[in-house]
């Protein structure tokens, strides 16, 4: 196992800060600024690897106190079982309150990824998030988005302002200079805060490795029941999965590069079952990370459009 000597314990004459140490310090600084300036912060917790890193940073930022805000999971009821298990365990380990919100309208209408396509994301996630933020009156919400994920995110601020109706206006963003963040807002308005803005996928993996952060086992390869559809490998995680006539789940050694609703998340065939081998595979692969997520596959500007509408 690798160790980050300068990060764990000090030496008599410290070496220059590494890029991971600088990223960690920046993220912790951001987390503390929000707690100092916002009235009711919350951390959006999606249970993925980025969320795991963000939660770990929050624990470090406020140690020995637990992070002084709750975790919020905007649930779609369609996440992988293994994600729900880690969710409970992580919240308990951090000593934090866990809030779970499921859009009642989506429940009532039985919205699911098989029948409803884009409406599934829109109702469960976009609308669900707005409902939850309004319900609890949160005025600042941490999210684990990174600028390297997608072009429209590359120009979003770390403190990203939302109107009372949760809209993002890319042309009217507050300039961010030095380490100074403007968290002031009118009543009803809120900010989304992205402490991992300057991290890349490789940084995330390296940090998970160095800090021994627990992540969902689905990131590691194991034999799992799968079907192949439209060039994507989908995992049959429970009996709600609707098999097409003649379709039979096949056990394959797979892992996931990103996690979401299981019927929408493509797996890759892999034998990488340790962090090092996952990173190795990631570095040797020739496609970018979000390819496994069905949501981005439409036109290039889709994410920007979703964000203006209030998607995280």
């Amino acid at each position: 196992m690798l160790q980050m000597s300068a990060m764990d314990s000090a030496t008599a004459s410290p070496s220059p800060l590494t890029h991971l140490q600088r990223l960690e310090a920046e993220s912790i600084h951001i987390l503390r600024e929000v707690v100092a300036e916002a009235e009711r912060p919350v951390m959006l917790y999606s249970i993925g690897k980025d969320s795991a890193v963000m939660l770990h940073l929050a624990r470090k930022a406020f140690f020995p106190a637990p992070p002084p805000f709750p975790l919020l999971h905007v649930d779609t009821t369609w996440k992988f079982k293994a994600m729900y298990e880690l969710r409970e365990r992580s919240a308990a380990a951090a000593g934090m309150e866990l809030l779970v919100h499921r859009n009642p309208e989506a429940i009532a209408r039985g919205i699911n990824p098989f029948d409803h396509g884009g409406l599934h994301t829109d109702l469960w996630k976009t609308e669900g998030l707005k409902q939850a933020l309004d319900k609890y009156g949160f005025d600042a919400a941490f999210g684990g988005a990174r600028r390297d994920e997608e072009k429209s995110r590359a120009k979003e601020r770390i403190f990203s302002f939302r109107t009372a109706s949760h809209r993002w206006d890319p042309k009217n963003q507050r300039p961010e200079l030095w380490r100074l963040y403007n968290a002031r807002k009118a009543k009803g308005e809120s900010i989304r805060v992205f402490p991992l803005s300057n991290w890349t996928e490789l940084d995330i993996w390296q940090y998970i490795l160095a800090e021994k952060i627990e992540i969902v086992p689905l990131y590691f390869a194991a034999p799992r029941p799968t079907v192949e559809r439209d060039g994507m490998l989908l995992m049959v995680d429970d009996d709600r999965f609707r098999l097409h006539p003649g379709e039979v789940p096949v056990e394959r050694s797979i892992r996931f590069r990103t996690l979401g609703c299981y019927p929408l998340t493509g797996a890759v065939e892999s034998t990488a079952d340790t962090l090092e081998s996952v990173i190795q595979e990631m570095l040797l692969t020739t496609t970018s990370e979000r390819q496994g997520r069905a949501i981005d596959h439409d036109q290039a500007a889709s994410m920007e459009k979703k964000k203006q509408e209030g998607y995280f």
Partner: protein
Amino acid sequence: MTAYRPDALIASDISAYLELHQRKSLLRFLTCGSVDDGKSTLIGRLLYDSKQIFEDQLSALENDSRRVGTQGQAIDFALLVDGLAAEREQGITIDVAYRFFATEKRKFIVADTPGHEQYTRNMVTGASTADLAVILIDARKGVLAQTKRHSFLAHLLGIRHLVVAVNKMDLIDYDQGVFDRIVDAYAEFAQSIGIQDFTAIPISGFRGDNVTTRSDAMPWFTGPVLLDHLETVEVDAEIDRIKPFRMPVQWVNRPNLDFRGFAGLIASGTVRPGDPVRILPSGRTSTVARIVTMNGDKDVAVAGESVTLTLADEIDCSRGDVIATADAPPQAADQFKATLVWMDPAELLPGRAYWLKLGTQTVSAVIRAPEYAIDVNTMARAPAKTLALNDIGVAEIVTDRGIVFEPYAESHDLGGFILIDKLTNATVGAGMLDFALRRAQNVHWQAVEITREAHAQQKGQQPRLLWFTGLSGSGKSTIANLVEKKLHALGKHSFLLDGDNIRHGLNRDLGFSDQDRVENIRRIGEVAKLMTDAGLIVLTAFISPFRAERAMVRSLLPDGEFFEIFVDTPIEEAERRDVKGLYKKARAGEIANFTGISSPYEPPRAPEIHIDTTRTTPEEAAEQIVEAIMGVWSPTL
């Protein structure tokens, strides 16, 4: 076209590879150039050549290049970088975008800022966190006004390393003569604005010459290629480490009665348990007990790290305070000279209060009218009354309480600040403290109350009551009007009370008996006093014939605010002028109790200002009054 090709070490020994990559340092840099200088192309080229482009991204890029690209069938690298849909349509970048790439030696964060005229704001934003700036020059065009502007802004924001990348060398046949002439022209300009040093590199972002690999087409160039240079320059964080210790306190960590930790990011220096420290602004001292982290206590922490410190003594310390090395602490002050960059469509309102955020301190601050503005194209200084979007100027700033600071040249963390509009909450400006004008008299925190002083401070002036007294027709209103116009032109907030706006409204129930005259003056005095409480400079133009009433009004106001101005016109002269024909009527017995004829006028014995209208024109009189007022203006405001 080839996409991402992984390092051989990844396949052969992943642990060794990760070990190597964990030790990498981080360089943040900024690229600036005009719309067509090829900035996005250069960044796209760096991402591409440093193997950050994946197969799916490359195929999307090839599609996009054919669809909306500007390079014909060739790959348009700019499309990798230009993010928002709106800008793709316009074919230009419109905001600051951050890109990431890494090499064997370093991780890089690139701030990409647009070059066109109206976006000084974006460039300043990108420059504020950069260790280095790459200034792009189109080899065909040479040093342009924009080149100078970008260099000036980079220098203003204190970027230590400047790279002048002369781009599109392929379009001028890699001509060394052209390159040398551009470098000479740039050197001359750089020296004129105080840039000590820069590195010039001839490149072609489109073809990749001298970007990551040495160009065969320019054997005459022996300097470093761009990427080599980026991999080896010294990073700011290393320089900050050798300065005295300072940590702005972000948050006090108090999980229980036994633990009290001070959380913050170390702005400069090094800290160890046992170090004597001083808390600013209180000046109290203690020693560092522990450096607490979740991974165990540390023996030492350095600039750039986020830490939690505990102190040996129970002393007051909260968000906004600065923990500093005990024997070389920073100062506190409440008046500064600062360089400002205005970033909002609504222009700066001198005298108005804004929130000023510096480090972890947020205070109310008034910016006085700028001393001058700087033309970013010519660096010329010009007088300015205000600053509009993208303007840069120098002004004095007065904060409502002392703040702990260092000049920006010494510390970006304790010298750089943003200004926030109190109503819209927008970040309207950024600034760099140059120096303090005086040390804070009172460095204690105060509750912000809207006091008389707060009203005045917001208007950037001291309240005054200019009480004009004199016979009817002596010229009080004429002079008072001229004085008010001059005050207004100086940006002062004033109001003139005269017969027209008082007699017809507030006092319309009063006649001209002695009793009513007294009540008339009493009411005017009270109204004028309220207006001075609101911070205004009030001018009144009434005969106010009795000394007692004038003395009564004087007593309503703090010492030094009441200015009795005697407009001295002999009755013969006033009667000769008789502007309104009132003397004629009075002599004819048509007006009772007319001052000077049927009612007495008691001239002031010791007026602050005495105007003899037989020797002074109204214009001269007004000039004299304004001068007298401004002369006794407190130097603090």
